[in-house]
């Protein structure tokens, strides 16, 4: 079995929120936990991709002779012999039906659109033989001059109607922002650029595909959503969805790049079909850079109009970025700028240029991360310009309701976040003057920024099977990205069933289990915990029915609504002496187990002990509900800058968030730390370099694509504001995977400004930009 077993713990009942150790921790550090590429299936073969050397043009020829002769080589697939799929994403309808992240599937034609595009897939009996054979393929091309980015003079900019794959508007307008800008007493304009970033999870993308029957496929996949992958594969392969099984028991990080079904997955399935044996394909690190999307290179121009007192009057935002030849993808940066502060007018535009790149995709806090960089730096500029404290300027523009819709917030603890963060950080001791604080040779700077992330509620299912011997198995087809889903859901199930957590086994990551949404958009904790809670309620309702019909039960003939459950004991709410333990009840009734299922619902059932409020027409989704649902938080950062050497070190960090119910104090803290480090990486070092002439990356490995190491990160202080949100979902959980990195790069940049008096608006803030001699 490849999931955490029943385990030992000292935690008592009421375990939700407690800093329980990871239930899968031991399996992971001992190597027992099997990741998707570690299934040693009988007859397993190995697939290796050969990718394009050029970024634009056509394949002239592929000579497979030498490769095919190599011992152990079973098949070589190219656009000439890849079995035809029922559907490809190459046309908009196909793309939509598949739910594909990219409107193009490699190996379906001879056209090359981007560097690193797969041109062949070699299958052999060992990994080494497949790798070697791939190097023996001789591919010739007719190359054309590619376009690398939107700054290329040949690039043609256009205004898309929709961005983010149709999910966000290309143009937004609220009030007359231009007129308000024209008459604003204070006007600021600034341009922000953001380097290409790659998710770079430790575990690269991988697929192991095995056909159990000619029309039945199992895929061990490195994905954030088994169900989405199942649907995509089934659609492309022309199979009923239930004939495809997708399994992801453990994931070594995803950050968005594993949120969709990318080409290598279906190509592996095709290859497995072709060779009649299971095929495993693991992307190399270099292939990872051109196989699962990225955060696009982008420029934002933000204009701000304000009163002399620092009250916002107008915000105008423009973003220009590179997209692929087929899709209009841009992270929706403007959303957060539209909701963060009380500003009467707002306008935003997107501009795109088609480059010879694959389609970019959601990357942790897509839109919110770079968008918050722009607005939070400009708010800082406003504070300095008007001589107002950076926190005070934000309080003067505090949004009491969602400015973009006028709806009230379901909950918002941002004021407390500012106050508590400032206290923990010692903000009051900060000298407001920039460039005035020193520590020997080093300049010391302190900056802060606001964070916010929407609560994307998704519906998901869960099943709970409670055994008469006092343990339970809980199931949901969710994914644990490595962040603690196994653990927190075990805690929720324990509390909901009144059992100690070691009596619960939670199973996830398999399409055979009840359907759960993708673990993305920070939805997993809220949705899955709520579904499990509801499933447990279902179990109690079933047992209540049994009890009130059982003449031997103390609850015989009681009305169901008069019965409640306390730590596994069914009892009369008004006379708790009258009742019995579920084990006694089940034994007497001859029930070995009882099973309940649940769907994450709106309304705080866990808070009230009642099932969640029914989903009504007005509280369905974020956009149609009565409330606007967001998490909020604040980051505080101290940096020390060496003005001669240009180095910036983060020396202190405080994050305070209001994110609804926190299910596990330890894993939640780790999430915030992880997200903040992700943000510090984007702020100070992460950048994928794309050669301007060849449209090809020049640093696609972890030696040259820098992500923070321990030495870059100080001790971090993380706190949560106690928040009980009765509107969002049954457990009142908002999710924290992404808010943790929103505002981080701005907090760092603001601290750098405070240290040096120099405003760097071009991420990452590397030493050359501090020195200021970088030529333009």
């Amino acid at each position: 079995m490849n999931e955490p077993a029943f385990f030992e713990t000292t935690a008592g009942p009421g375990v939700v929120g407690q800093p329980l150790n990871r239930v899968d921790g031991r399996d992971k550090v001992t190597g027992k936990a099997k990741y998707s590429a570690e299934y040693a299936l009988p007859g397993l073969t190995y697939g290796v991709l050969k990718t394009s050397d050029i970024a634009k043009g056509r394949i002239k020829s592929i000579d497979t002779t030498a490769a095919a002769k190599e011992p152990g080589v079973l098949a070589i697939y190219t656009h000439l012999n890849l079995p035809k799929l029922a559907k490809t994403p190459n046309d908009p309808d196909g793309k939509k039906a598949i739910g594909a992240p990219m409107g193009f599937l490699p190996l379906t034609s001879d056209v090359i659109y981007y560097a690193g595009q797969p041109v062949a897939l070699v299958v052999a009996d060992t990994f080494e033989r497949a790798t070697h054979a791939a190097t023996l393929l001789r591919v010739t091309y007719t190359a054309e001059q590619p376009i690398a980015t939107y700054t290329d003079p040949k690039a043609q900019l256009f205004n898309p109607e929709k961005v983010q794959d149709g999910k966000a508007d290309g143009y937004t307008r609220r009030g007359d922002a231009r007129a308000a800008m024209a008459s604003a007493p204070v006007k600021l304009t600034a341009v922000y650029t953001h380097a290409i970033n790659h998710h770079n999870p430790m575990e690269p993308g991988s697929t192991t595909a095995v056909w159990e029957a000619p029309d039945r496929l199992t895929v061990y996949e490195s994905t954030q959503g088994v169900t989405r992958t199942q649907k995509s594969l089934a659609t492309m392969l022309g199979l009923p969805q239930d004939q495809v099984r997708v399994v992801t028991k453990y994931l070594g990080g995803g950050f968005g790049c594993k949120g969709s079904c990318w080409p290598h997955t279906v190509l592996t399935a095709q290859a497995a079909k072709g060779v009649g044996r299971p095929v495993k394909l693991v992307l190399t690190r270099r292939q990872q850079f051109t196989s699962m999307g990225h955060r696009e290179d982008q420029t934002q121009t933000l204009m701000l109009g304000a009163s002399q007192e620092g009250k916002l009057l107008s915000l105008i935002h423009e973003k220009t970025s590179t997209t692929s030849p087929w899709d209009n993808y841009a992270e929706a940066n403007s959303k957060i700028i539209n909701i963060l502060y009380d500003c009467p007018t707002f306008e935003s535009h997107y501009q795109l240029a088609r480059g010879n790149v694959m389609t970019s995709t959601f990357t942790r806090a897509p839109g919110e991360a770079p968008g918050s960089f722009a607005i939070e730096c400009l708010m800082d500029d406003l504070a300095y310009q008007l001589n107002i404290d950076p926190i005070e300027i934000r309080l003067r523009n505090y949004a009491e309701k969602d400015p973009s819709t006028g709806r009230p917030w379901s909950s918002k603890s941002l004021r407390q976040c500012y106050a508590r963060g400032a206290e923990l950080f010692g903000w009051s001791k900060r000298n407001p003057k920039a460039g005035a604080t020193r520590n020997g040779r080093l300049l010391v700077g302190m900056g802060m920024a606001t964070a916010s992330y929407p609560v994307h509620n998704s519906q998901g299912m869960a099943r709970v099977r409670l055994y008469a011997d006092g343990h339970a198995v809980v199931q949901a087809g969710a994914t644990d990205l490595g962040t603690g889903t196994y653990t927190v859901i075990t805690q929720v199930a324990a509390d909901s069933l009144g059992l100690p957590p070691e009596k619960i086994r939670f199973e996830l990551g398999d399409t055979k289990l009840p359907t759960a949404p993708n673990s993305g958009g920070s939805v997993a904790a809220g949705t899955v915990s709520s579904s499990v809670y509801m499933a447990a309620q279902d179990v109690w309702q079933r047992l209540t029915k049994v009890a009130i019909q059982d003449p031997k039960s103390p609850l015989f003939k009681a009305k169901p609504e008069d019965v409640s459950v306390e730590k596994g004991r069914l009892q009369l709410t008004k006379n708790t002496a009258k009742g019995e333990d579920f084990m006694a009840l089940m034994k007497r009734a001859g029930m070995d187990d009882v099973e309940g299922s649940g769907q994450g619902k709106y309304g705080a059932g866990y808070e009230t002990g009642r099932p969640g409020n029914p989903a009504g027409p007005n509280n369905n989704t974020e956009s149609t509900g009565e409330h606007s649902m967001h998490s909020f938080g604040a980051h505080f950062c101290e940096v020390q800058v060496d003005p001669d050497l240009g180095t910036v070190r983060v020396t202190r960090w405080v994050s305070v968030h209001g994110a609804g119910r926190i299910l596990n104090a330890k894993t939640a803290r780790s999430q915030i730390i992880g997200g903040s480090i992700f943000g510090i990486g984007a702020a100070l070092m992460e950048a994928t370099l794309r050669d301007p002439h060849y449209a090809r990356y020049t640093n696609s490995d972890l030696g040259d694509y820098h992500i923070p190491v321990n030495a870059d990160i100080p001790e971090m202080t993380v706190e949560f504001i106690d928040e009980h949100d009765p509107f969002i979902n049954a457990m009142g959980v908002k999710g924290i995977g992404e808010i943790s990195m929103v505002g981080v790069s701005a907090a760092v940049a603001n601290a750098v400004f405070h240290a040096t008096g120099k405003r760097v608006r071009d991420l990452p803030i590397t030493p050359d930009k501090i020195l200021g001699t970088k030529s333009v």
Partner: protein
Amino acid sequence: MENFTYLQASQAKEATAAVRDHKGAAFIAGGTTLLDLMKLNVENHNQLVDINMLAFKGVEQTADGLRIGALERMSDVGENPLVMQQYPVISQSLLQAASPQLRNMASIGGNLLQRTRCGYFRDTAFPCNKRQPGSGCPAQEGENRNLAILGGSKACIATYPGDLAVALVALDAVVLLENAKGKQRRVPLLDFHLVPGNTPQRETVIEPGELIVSVTVPAAAHARKSMYLKVRDRASYAFALVSAAVGLDVQGSQIRSARVALGGVGTKPWRSLTAEKILTGAPATEATFRAAAAAAVRDAQPREQNRFKLELAQNTLVRALTDVAAKA
């Protein structure tokens, strides 16, 4: 990656002969450069000759200085008390290099022969004169932030990426080589690495089949009072944007002898004799250090993205000289 055969050599002769007589063979020590480049198909070898059993070991004091066996590991040399006390710049250059895991594997000889991190060199899809002579140098007009401002040519501007060689070249280290005939020769490290000129594929004077046996470093006052300062994009585990290896012998307030080398800026470990000349005999003041730093980069030819290295190299050098002069 090509298939290769593997041979473990127990004698130097066996190793050198195997490489000399087998076209496409290469020595393997720690393998941290070699296997990386083989996996990228940048280097292809059909035979690997493992030299780890050879007796090229030892970190010891000799009559006139220090001797380090070529097969000593970076971590062992970096943490050796003799090296730390008498040659701090060497120890620091090693301990600020790579990661603990890499330092535990990587050898001193292999370290000197590590190859550039130029992204075009490391990807066979690009042209690159170093990898494929005559194919071109896209770095000149491309991503050259990390590349050299000193010692470049029209053919190649790739940075020599290592740290240790920068410290060693500053301290007049000498490399002991041995060929298949068992003949040994001594090459000053200053002459060991080559600037690219028209032949960027030739990086050192080492001949095919020749082994690095050891490195010797003369003892000197400026070696005892020395330091390595490395500036990089993250706090640890990154190649140098710029680094400075300096040693000073200061008597009273006057500099009696000085050693200066720069890393991250040159196509080879960049010793600056002109900077040393300015320092020698001059007072140990900031003005002197500034003048020496300016001289060290006088011949620099920066590109669009690496222009900042001009200022950064000077600041780094001034900082290192200031700090080392202030040492007791």
